[in-house]
């Protein structure tokens, strides 16, 4: 019973957080709402007995991604004041239509028509088991992922630095 209530509360928080994130004019507020969303999702993961994933979610998303987004916003936009421009883009009506269409015509029918398994007994995985799975069947994926992160790191540095280098050269010449 409590599970039900928890689920619904967390669901509502997640939805609201997401909505605020996408609709808020003030981007900083939006990012914070996003963080609340991430948190709610972590709670849902806990409910679904994926504790490790919940922890990772909080660590990575709220800790890293969120902060990164804040930095990006601050670097690219003025935080307060003159967000006088309309936040919605031209033809945003079609965007609404598209999103709703996807929900109504694509996802929901898929869910309705699928043959879904019913509730089973809960399974509580240990972190050790997770580690063992990662090392044995999925070791290749793990290594590729490491490579990916390295590439991303290098790429991000390169992309972000590109302009500074030019400026330095221009100043020198």
């Amino acid at each position: 019973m409590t599970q039900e209530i928890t689920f619904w509360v967390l669901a509502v928080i997640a939805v609201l957080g997401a909505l605020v994130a996408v609709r808020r004019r003030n981007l900083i507020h939006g990012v914070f709402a996003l963080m609340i969303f991430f948190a709610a999702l972590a709670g849902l993961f806990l409910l679904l007995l994926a504790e490790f994933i919940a922890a990772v979610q909080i660590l990575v998303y709220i800790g890293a991604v969120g902060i990164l987004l804040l930095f990006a916003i601050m670097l690219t936009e003025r935080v307060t004041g003159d967000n006088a421009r309309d936040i919605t883009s031209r033809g945003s009506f079609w965007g609404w239509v598209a999103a709703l269409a996807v929900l109504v015509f694509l996802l929901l029918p898929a869910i309705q028509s699928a043959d879904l398994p019913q509730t089973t007994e809960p399974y509580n995985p240990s972190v050790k088991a997770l580690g063992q799975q990662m090392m044995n069947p999925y070791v290749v994926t793990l290594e590729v992922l490491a490579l990916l992160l390295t590439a991303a790191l290098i790429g991000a540095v390169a992309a972000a630095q590109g302009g500074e280098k030019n400026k330095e050269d221009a100043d020198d010449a």
Partner: protein
Amino acid sequence: MSTETLALIPLLPLVAAAITSGMQCGRRAAGIAVAAMLGSCVLALMAFSESWGMAEGVHMHEPFNIEWLTIGDTVINFGFVLDPLTGVMAAMVTFVGLLIFIFSFGYMKDDPRMARFFCYLSLFAAGMLGLILANSLLLLFMCWEIVGVASYLLISFWNHKPEAAAAGKKAFIVTRIGDMGFLIGILLAFKTTGTLMLYDGGAGLLETEMAGTVFGFKTAAVVSLLLFCGAAGKSGQLPLHVWLPDAMEGPTPVSALIHAATMVAAGVFLVARAMPLFVDGGTLWVVAWVGALTALVAAFIALGQYDIKRILAYSTVSQLGLMMVGLGVGGVAIGMFHLLTHAFFKALLFLGAGSIIHGCHEEQDIRKMGGVWKSMRVTSIAYLCGTAALVAFPFTSGFFSKDEILASAWAANRPIFWIAAFASLLTAIYMTRQCLYVFTGAHRGEHEPHESPKVMTVPLIILAVAALGLGALAHEPVFGKLPGSAAPHGTIVIVVSVAVALGGILIGWLFYGGRKLGEGTDPLAVAPLREKLWFDELYAATVGRLWNLMAIIWEQLNELLLFVRDMVVALARALSSAVAIGGDRRFIDTFAFDGLCQKLRDCGWAVTRPQSGFLSSYLRLIAFGAVALGLLLFWMI
């Protein structure tokens, strides 16, 4: 005799006609024409002797057929046939024709268009000979038409005279009316039997039975009557006789050739040739009655004429009627016998008349003649021989031939006998009248007549001998070879025929013998006879008026058609401009073509619109695409 030699008989004069058509010198042209005719005469006499030698009982007709025209399955042949009928006709035509050609040399000596005259004469001779020798009904008809054209050219030869031109036209048109019937007859015969050959080894027109009926009458009867239409036109039977007297406008040799010996005989020849059809169809009584009536009416009219040639013309019509009677009641031999004798004595009479006219300085009215006996002895004697033959004075050729006709008529058809006898009586009367007018008394003209040159009198003498002697000579051979038998000569017939001839002369003498001729009225030439029983006037009033009316109607119709044509042209023009400008320029160029290009450009522009460089729109499109794809898969599954 081979086909080639036979073909030469009509071909020689044809070639002469071709050669002389461009010549200017009359004497040379005459020479060529006479030479060609001489050649034909020789060949014809050879053919005649050969045909006379053909065995009795065996099929005497020897066809020479040449394939001429092939249309699909039908083959139209030309060909010549040589049988006693052909032989005797060809011999007669060439012989008489040769004499007339020689006579013309003298008669037309001073005419500026002499060469052209001989050209036409040769053409006529060619047509006539082709007609006689033809084995194909089509060839016969073609030669028939050639003869018609040549006669038109010859009758209207002195074309500066409007009467001559009118006479030529009249001859052509009236014979044309008969020719229409002839043509229909040919077509009907062809349709019924499938062949136009007369003799074809058993398959020819005259050899096979004509099956079926037309409008309830036997086909053979209908065909024979249609052919008789053509014969009636050419031979001047009632009611198509009106051209013959007017044809006297032509030069005298023309009258002699055409109206004595040949062209008018073509009709009689056609009936004789097609005799099997007449016998098969049982239409001989029509021939006999038409002939009898013609003989009678023409003889009456001749009584009232004053032109020497016109009298002879009506006499020809009357004698032709008698020939038709002969064919009708007696058969080929009897009719052809009279044709033969008539050819000689009528030619003699016409040439004699020509000589008289020439001698009387181109005078033709008998009232202005007289006393010719004294001045033109040779001509007069020859003319009197001809007259004797014509009135059937005993033991002349005419006597024998007319006697046969009367005998057959007595045996076959009594009323016709009396009509023929009465016509013969009238013949004697009008000929006596004419002779008295011309030969006796003092000359009533201005100058004394003079005898004609030898070139004109010699043929006269030859013909005179023939006119007197041919009857006795030809009697047996003719009746031996030609079909038809001589009827038994009862005493009554002989008495009647002699009485008619001598009686007529007597009556003529009584009426005209003692009188002062030329002044005062003529007792027998009453108004109706003088006016030719008003035949021409009747035709002008009825047929002539009808034709004028039709001409007016057709002219109006023509106007109407022209109007319609103008309308159609205007409509077509409007339509074409509408299509060109409206259709082509506006619709196709502007709307379709340029418009299409513009639409394509617009489409291209429309297609570039999504590429806005606007990221959100790309994403939206992707979302929509995903929805569409999902729906598609969803519905498909």
